[in-house]
């Protein structure tokens, strides 16, 4: 298992928010990559690299939930965190049921965001270790 730095993959079709949130995560010391659509992320992701996904829930073409199911079918799924403009209980329930790490609102306190990202990365690390143990 290589010792590469884990990366936070941020996916949002709103360029403005994408830039802002990646700045904040970088300032906190995370390594960040940004994508303006779920397709872009799926096409560019490096398989089996450590990290987590932070995605907007509502996007044209492929939305956050679609991305979650697409990712779940790959051999190396990443933990996923959702961001949404405002609360949407049914979507939240579905996302959590399908194994999302967390479901955040875009204007939640930054500590909550940092905690969630840290947890997601830790979980990824555990998952990878478990997968390595199975092999």
């Amino acid at each position, binding site marked *: 298992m290589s010792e590469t730095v884990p990366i936070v993959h941020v996916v949002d079709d*709103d360029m*403005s*928010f994408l*830039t*802002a*949130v990646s*700045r*904040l995560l*970088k*300032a*906190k010391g995370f390594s960040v990559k940004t994508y303006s659509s779920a397709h872009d992320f799926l096409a560019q992701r490096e398989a089996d690299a450590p990290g987590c996904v932070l995605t907007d*829930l*509502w*996007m*044209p073409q492929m*939305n956050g939930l679609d991305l979650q199911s697409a990712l779940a079918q790959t051999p190396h799924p990443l933990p996923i965190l959702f961001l949404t*403009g*405002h609360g*949407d209980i049914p*979507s939240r329930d579905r996302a959590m049921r399908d194994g999302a790490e967390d479901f955040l*609102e*875009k*204007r939640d306190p*930054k500590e909550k965001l940092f905690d969630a990202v840290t947890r997601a990365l830790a979980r990824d690390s555990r998952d990878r270790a478990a997968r390595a143990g199975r092999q």
Partner: protein
Amino acid sequence: MSLITIIWSMSASACLTVAGINLLVWCRDRRAWANLLFSLTATSTAAFALCELWMMHAGTPAEFTTVLKLGHVAVWLLVVSLVGFVRLYLKAGRPWLAWMVCGLRTLALILNFLVGQNLNYLEITRLRHIKFLGESVQIAEGVPNPWMLVGQLSLLALLIFATDATVTAWRRGDLHRALTVGGIAVFFSLVSACQAVLVFWGIVRMPIVASLSFVGMVAVMGYELGSEMLRAAQLDRKLQVSEAGLHEIEERMRLAVEAVGFGIWIRDFVHDEVWATDNWRALFGFSKTDRLEFGNILQRLHPEDRDAFRLVLEKATEGAGSYEAEYRIVLPSGEVRWVGSRGRVVFDASGRAILIRGISQDITERKRAEEETQNLRREIAHVGRVTMMGQLASALAHEINQPLGAILRNAEAAELFLHNASPDLDEIGAILADIRKDDQRAGDVIDRMRGLLKRQNLDKRPVQVGELIGEVVALVRSDAAARHVKLEVAVADPMPPVFGDPVHLQQVLLNLIVNGMDALDDAQREGRRISVTAALEGPQAVEIAVSDSGRGIPADKLTDIFDPFFTTKPKGLGMGLCISRTIIEAHHGRLWAENPKEGGAAFRFTLPIEEKDASP
């Protein structure tokens, strides 16, 4: 009394009678110049006939000379008036030929008084008795005057002139006149000219009887003129009969027009007069005896409508040929009425307006009803907008959270950067610029919400169709995603801007898309799709369609759905489509629904590319 005296004096008196009748015709109708000229021709023929009679009974050569001299005055008048008559009556004959005839004859008349004893003789040596028509008459013997040629040349010119005029009239198809006036003039002047030539050059010994052939001419032409007058009189009588019929028709029309409340007015440009029916006068507040002038009618119009109406009339008289207008009038009592009026212009051959005929009608009631409907619609539109705001609120909350979230994250990032020992000031500058940009975005969303809420009249301007659709789609995107509806947009390229009020048009699109999503609520999740398309519809309109993949609209409801308070939704007010149609019609477009072959329902509306004048 001798036979010669009887023939000549009767001819003269017949000529004088014809002359008198034609003079009378001219006195009655001063434009009948042909009759006056013919009267002169007949008078001079009579005078010349009397001169001939006198010469046949002259006692001395001196007496013969004097009478012949006077006779030439009569001949001058005869030739000149005949030329004028032929020219006027046949409307033919070359003017230069006419002037040549008159010129030569005038020269001959002058020579008649200046050279020799008269135009025909340098000297009359003696008179001689000869037998003529069984009687003894005098003829002159002497030295022929060579200047006589000028007079005979003038007769030759007359012949040519009359022949030319006859041929022209004949070719024009005026056969009857050409024969009775032109042909006869040619024939009789030829006969009398020949006789004069033979007698005066001493080739034939007989008295001058030229007047007799002219009398023949006067008789034929007089008959022609007389029958013409008879025809005119008959025509006049017929006209009187048909005029009575016309009056009857006019009465019936007036009755019909008054029964339906129309007023008729006629403006005569030639005589600068205005005529109007009694109920037109009543409508405009004029009494039956008031003198009507265009100026004082215009004064009755509402000051705000006056110039517009004047312009409409100008357009009509400058070639459009007809007009249609609605305007207000202010009666002397201060009462304001709405009048609808339309009319047609009559032009003369040169295209100048000579007459306008128009009808006017009191449309005050209709206008009031229209205004009330308009107010009601505005109320309904306002209520509709307010209820729609409920649906909008969640969409707008999402819209506004987007920039606010970005602002928050940027501010937090900047704070963290500032805690560093050596903060990256460039990065912080970029963050501040982004914060400013997102603040602007949030402000725009709020402005849009305010625009949707405000009650306002249409504020039309060029609108980019792509932008219009894009903005509405952005508003509903999150809602659509939450309801698993796929939104597709296809705008043809190039697409000219339409003319309309963007806020109202957004409202229509929003309504149609939200309706579409409602229709998809019970459809299979996978197939939920709404497409918004825009394409050119002919050269002057754009057609925008919102189609969904739902079950479509029952065929018998395709028109009902636009009725107010028609709804299939438990919570719906049933005003959305009604308001949408009102808005599209206020833009001079159409909104309708159909079930396309590929399934689902489609709402289509058209918008004009160019602005159309709203009717006043």
